């Protein structure tokens, strides 16, 4: 049996980035479609919900790929962009048989069951930072009802009167278990406790039972390490390696 050396943190980081890039590639494809559909708005024309509906075809296509990790995808429009719907989305999920189903949440703000997506991090963070974002892992009880990570990119445009404005986000969901399965073989061969965490310090996947997916790490103050900047940060025997361009990091803990 050939002996293989334990994977390095850099190898794990590369693998995480590669998996995330696969998902963002699909999202970026949809963003291109969204840009086209929203173009008339940036030229001063009135845009209605029906005008963004043609994104359904490409959305269903990315969900329909065999063995695709994506369980949901679509376009979520910012308030007051469409003339006939203050809040709007064209979002699709895969049902238990793998068939795409359009999500139909209550988007009328007058209704009490109104789903105010404008306060949720997968919508607000890309809007505030102008940058792509990974939200989660979290229980997405309205959409997948699974432990989910949501990948979103912002869409901006320049309106003749309103100037530069946020037009919405394009995004996709994957379930946490998909990432766990793909990363555990690598994590398992690493020496010492290692966890993939988000900026809050929540475990995405790790190689120790005590560091179970979804737990918030108590062994290290990840938010404090995170605030120190993009370079590796160490405190109390724990080292955080932030992944470039993603709100995720690899945390190496003392044995």
């Amino acid at each position: 049996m050939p002996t293989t050396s334990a994977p390095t943190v850099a190898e794990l980081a590369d693998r995480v980035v590669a998996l995330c890039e696969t998902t963002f590639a699909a999202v970026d494809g949809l963003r291109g479609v969204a840009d086209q559909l929203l173009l008339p708005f940036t030229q001063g024309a009135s845009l209605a919900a029906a005008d963004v509906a043609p994104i359904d075809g490409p959305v269903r296509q990315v969900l329909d790929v065999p063995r695709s990790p994506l369980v949901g995808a679509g376009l979520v429009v910012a308030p007051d962009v469409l003339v006939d719907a203050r809040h709007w989305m064209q979002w699709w999920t895969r049902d238990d048989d793998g068939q795409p189903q359009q999500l139909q949440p209550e988007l009328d703000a007058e209704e009490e069951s109104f789903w105010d997506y404008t306060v949720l991090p997968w919508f607000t963070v890309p809007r505030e930072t102008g940058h792509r974002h990974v939200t989660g892992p979290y229980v997405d009880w309205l959409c997948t009802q699974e432990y989910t990570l949501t990948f979103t990119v912002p869409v901006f445009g320049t309106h003749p009167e309103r100037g530069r404005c946020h037009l919405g986000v394009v995004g996709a969901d994957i379930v946490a278990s998909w990432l766990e399965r793909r990363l555990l073989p690598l994590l398992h061969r690493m020496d010492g406790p290692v966890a993939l965490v988000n900026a809050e310090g929540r475990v995405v996947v790790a190689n120790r039972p005590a560091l179970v997916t979804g737990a918030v790490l108590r062994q290290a103050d990840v938010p404090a390490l995170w605030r120190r900047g993009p370079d590796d940060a160490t405190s109390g025997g724990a080292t955080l390696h932030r992944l470039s361009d993603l709100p995720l990091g690899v945390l190496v803990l003392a044995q």
Partner: protein
Amino acid sequence: MRSDGGRAAVFAPLESGRRADAVVRRLADGIALGLLVPDEQLPSETELADTFGVSPVTVREALTALREQGLVATRRGRGGGSFVRDARAGASALHERLRAVSPSELRDLADHYVAVTGTAALLAADRAGAQDVALLTAGVGELERATDAGGRRRAESRFHVELAAAAQSPRLTRAEIALQTEVGPLLWLPTATPAAQAEQVRQHAAIVEAVAAGDGQRARAHAVAHVYAALARASVLQLGLLGQLDPDED
């Protein structure tokens, strides 16, 4: 309108306190006691406000609650107004449900619900992030702002689903969602009154405070007390309903 002692008592001015709730109780009792009969038209909102000594807004709130409980129906247009519904004939979905289960079944539902909700609170205290706490806090505000029974019930249900989501457990979250269809009409509608609202808001705030502080045992204790307080209210209503049944009727 016919006038006699019992009926006059129904419409006697209210002294103080939780006025809309008191109006609801007075009219609901009148209907339950048969002093107000099915299909009878209630006085107008203005008249009711005068006789009870409350504002028209309070009367409207009370009538909404009675409508939600299925005790009155409001017809619009000419000849419209609020009419007494035949509660014995099963006009009220809530009363129907409460009659359909026995006290032991109602208690068992609360026990099951406590197992899920209590554990959700315990785990949420350990696992909730800043975003989870923000959503739970917003949920408390939603219940505070709710203005009718349906809105209170929805806010209550939603808070519990958010609590399970904060526990990072899809299974507990799905269990919460599944239980809401049973718990909603049986435990939340009886507490969906203006008076219970302030109490429910305080209980929610206490749960959120313990979750934010990372105190799992306290969060669980508040969540358990919250559910059993709802059970206590529902039980009072249920015993009143079952007490009116013909003992030989199955």
